[in-house]
């Protein structure tokens, strides 16, 4: 059977499949469908310094081959997460990646510092790309100098490797990727959602209470693949890829583009077993395309070889 393991900064992955942040809460619900120890890793819901209620409803809308969400970072706050959510995840044999969010550099730093007191996380995913909060979030992800600054500060405040989650809502993704690499990021995760909108024809107003929301799902896969392909050629740190994955073929496409591992978001809603099923089917899919292992496929879509 093909070797599925991948070694990344702070992350010793059994396989390259993990649920994406915000689509899996803190794992409890999906643990009713399969054993979380099967997963390569788990990216948990964003943590902010204090509890946040998030946006008003409606918070989601369906779009063609995708969805919009504007949850607005609802979470119980980093302390509650450490005390009440992470212990549950520690009962499984799976690395946990904490998604760190904030409105100010200080808040990001504070969350990272708070996480120092737990052994339960293996890495941080620095979310500088959430389009659904009024302040902070998205600006950090669209301006290279801000992205670099928050990366550097969080890196300094953290005891685990820091992966920076990039926003696709930018003119030049490579520029941002290089800026955060230089600022000390250990890896990248990409892509977060694209900013979109749906209008309720009957009510004559945006359907989401927040007006705009983040577009995810298969609709955005070509954009994710393009961005990962471009960034892979421009940086030396590993990429965890995401955006529209629903099948083993998609996973392999992300690996070929240059991702070392992948995360699955929206597809969990359609099929709660998706991560488990893909992990099971992956060896066969790798074989079909003549890859000896996951590592063997990473970046192989660049030129012949």
């Amino acid at each position, binding site marked *: 059977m093909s070797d599925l393991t991948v070694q990344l900064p702070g992350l010793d992955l059994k396989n390259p499949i993990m649920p994406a942040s915000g*689509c899996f809460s803190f794992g409890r*619900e999906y643990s009713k*469908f399969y054993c979380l120890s099967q997963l390569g890793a788990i990216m948990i*819901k964003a943590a902010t310094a204090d509890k946040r209620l*998030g946006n008003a409803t409606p*918070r989601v809308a369906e779009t063609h081959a995708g969805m919009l*969400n504007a949850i607005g970072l*609802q979470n119980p706050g980093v302390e509650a997460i450490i005390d009440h959510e992470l212990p549950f995840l520690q009962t499984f044999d799976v690395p946990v990646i904490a998604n760190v969010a904030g409105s100010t550099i200080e808040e990001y730093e504070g969350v990272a510092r708070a996480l120092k007191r737990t052994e339960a996380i293996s890495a941080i995913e620095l979310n500088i790309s959430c389009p659904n909060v009024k302040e902070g979030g998205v600006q950090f992800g669209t301006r290279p100098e801000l992205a670099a600054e928050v990366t550097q500060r969080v890196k300094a405040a953290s005891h685990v490797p820091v992966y920076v989650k990039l926003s696709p809502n930018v003119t030049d993704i490579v520029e941002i990727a290089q800026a955060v690499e230089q600022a000390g990021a250990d890896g990248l995760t990409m892509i977060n959602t694209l900013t979109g909108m749906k209008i309720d024809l009957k009510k004559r107003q945006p359907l989401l209470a927040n007006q705009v929301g983040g577009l995810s799902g298969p609709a955005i896969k070509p954009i994710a693949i393009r961005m990962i392909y471009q960034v892979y050629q421009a940086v030396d740190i590993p990429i965890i890829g995401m955006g529209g994955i629903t099948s083993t073929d998609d996973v392999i496409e992300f690996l070929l583009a240059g991702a070392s591992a992948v995360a699955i978001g929206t*597809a969990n*809603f359609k099929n709660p077993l998706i991560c488990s099923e893909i992990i099971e089917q992956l060896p066969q899919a790798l074989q079909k395309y003549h890859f000896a292992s996951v590592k063997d496929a990473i970046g192989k879509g660049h030129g012949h070889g």
Partner: protein
Amino acid sequence: MKVCEAVIDDIKQIARDTMQVHLKVEANILQTIKPGQFVHIQVNNGTEHMLRRPISVANIDQERQLLTIVFKVFGQGTAKLAAYEAEQSINLLIPCGQGYPIEELQIKKALLIGGGIGVPPLYYLARQLAKKNIEIISVLGFQTQADVFYQQDFEAFGQCFVTTMDGSYGYKGVVTDVIKQEHLLFDYYFSCGPTAMLRAVQTELTNYPGYISLEERMGCGIGACYACVVPSKDQATYKKICQDGPVFRANEVSI
């Protein structure tokens, strides 16, 4: 909760744009289902519709191992569900959410208040209440005559008032009008329907203990995505409709 491929036993239209579907489901799953719970339905394979559709359990027939759902064709997803035929199968998450906690309550006389597609879950509730020999009065509100369904089924359990907004059938007006006009007496109420109706019920029946069942756009349907929240009465926290609800005590949430 399980992922389950359920074969359609039969599917038919029972009112304007309103479909009733009987699904074959394993007995051991059916046994666990409480009135007020819902199933989260995949529209179809492929990637066109990434979100499931939440539909309430309208009835369960343990003997024939059938689960009934009744839904209105509203948008693209329900239109596709309506086009399914007998023998085809659909993919369900089952069961979802918390139902009406009737085991825990001392009820003598229950008032069921349903509006439109809020009527179906009350039918299974009525059957379960009737089993416990609880007296049942129902008030069912619809837009217009063409929308009315299940009247006879509810009449089998007791008094049943039907209202239509345009007066084309039964009483004219909203469900709360009937409750007032008829001076209905009861010790608990159970209501499901559009938010506007639930709000009116909450306000008018503020002195009665009651349960309401809420709707909201959902992502996961299992509590993992925070899409389907409703503020608690004091606005201090959010409840998840898919996990903590869809049934809530009427005074528990702010709608």
